[in-house]
């Protein structure tokens, strides 16, 4: 990152870096992502966190040759839009060559290094998706 953000931004979201958590509405039953305290479908405040499936299908992707500061060492960065059934998610793809990628492949979530802090050199971890190797 070329810009610094305040610590609470990271702290507030710390759980979401490592787990795939969405929300489920106890009133209408629908699942949504990202999680929020109000159901985006029926406006109910009666929602609970829910674990999302770790396996999904790649809907679309891009290969970024000009990513922001903090991601430069990983260039080119592959970013996918992934269908998790009831919800979709955007995430980096990892452990994959450009030749192996196409719309529709099955992908699974793993924990990986996301980026390095510019000044302190801290390593930020989080989820990425890789092609499913075996069932």
């Amino acid at each position, binding site marked *: 990152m*070329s810009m610094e953000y305040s610590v609470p931004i990271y702290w507030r979201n710390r759980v979401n870096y490592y787990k795939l958590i969405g929300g489920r509405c106890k009133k209408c039953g629908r699942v949504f992502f990202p999680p929020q305290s109000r159901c985006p479908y029926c406006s109910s405040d009666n929602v609970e966190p829910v674990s999302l499936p770790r396996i999904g299908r790649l809907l679309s992707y891009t290969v970024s040759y*000009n990513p922001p500061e*903090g991601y430069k060492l990983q260039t080119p960065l592959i*970013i996918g*839009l992934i269908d998790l059934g009831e919800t*979709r998610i*955007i995430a980096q793809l990892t452990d994959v060559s450009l030749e192996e990628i196409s719309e529709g492949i099955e992908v699974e979530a793993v924990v990986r290094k996301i980026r390095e802090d510019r000044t302190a050199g801290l390593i930020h971890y989080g989820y990425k998706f890789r092609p499913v190797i075996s069932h």
Partner: protein
Amino acid sequence: MTRNVAIVGTGHSKFGNRHDVNMPELAWEAIKQAIDEAGIEQKDVEFVSFSNVGGWSSEGLASVVSLEYAGLTGAGLYRVEAACSSGSAAIKAAHDAIASGEADIAMAIGLEKMNESPTPTVIEFIGRAGNFFWEFQNFGLTFPGYYALYATAYMAKHGATEEDLCKVAVKNHYYASLNPKAHFPIPITVEKCMKSRYIAWPLKLYDCSPITDGAAAVVLASEEVAKKLTDSPVWIESIGVSSGTSNLSRRDDFLHLEAGTLAADRAYKKAGLSRDDIVKHVDVAEVHDCFTIAEILAYEDLGFAKRGEGYKLIRDQETYKGGKIPVNLSGGLKAKGHPLGATGISMAVDLSRQLQGRVEKERQADIKVGRALAHNIGGTGHYAYVTLYSLSKPRR
């Protein structure tokens, strides 16, 4: 109360890397032209809506600084932000001030000076134009990356190719070469575009609009005042507005922009038009081609082409002058440049001049029905504005 509103003066700075001027100087280039064209004095302007996204430029209150420089201090003022469609939002705000009876003469002024920050800072700012935590900060997705997700999905579904995308760039660079106000008035070939480096696959350098400095301004007037000021007013016939989710993961599909489609339908409905035969009722359009794929999506969202067939319009050169519906004869965001806050107003300026038959001859559209369309998207379909401009006074 609702009253007719007309554009009675237009101004447009040279777009480009404008290290030769500061922010108010750049704004003044456009403001002076607009005021002179309208034949008014600064004291006549009752209200100004000023579009500037800012953040990357020196002035925190660019609107106030620019009004002081231009001698407009004292007019009612606020800054308007709707990302890349801020200019269209500013026009709507000034329009509404007049339509409601609050003002008789108002201005919409757009200014953006993006080159006052280093490029990585600008990339980061634009990358945050979506959902900060869930789609930018965690994944390093850049703004071209958002549109690239649409391009990949569109190409996979409909069979469009990277060459088709490049053909949009070739057209818009061609028209920019005829527009002295353009940032890149240089023609390119499909081959040159295809050989340019990838920014976010499948989008290459020549698929992307540049980081540009520029300003544009319009003077708007009520019907009564417009009649006194000019014999050739350009009426704001209708404005359709909509918005989309910040998270792209919450969009229904990646083949169209729902906000753009909704904004078009709302604008058409107010004007008594239908998307089914809209091309017969519009002489010329400026659409939001921040990336080449965005122009193809716009063809479909506006009803210029059926779903899945937008790329055929550019393949068949139907969006050139003389074609089914000429699009971006100014050079578009792609080659005229995209100074965010100025873009929507730049569209209004160029379309007004198109309707009045006073742009450079080689890029002047044939004006038959006397109507032009501006399609201005903020972010990746986060905001959407479709505005119809007409030589005929709207019926109320």
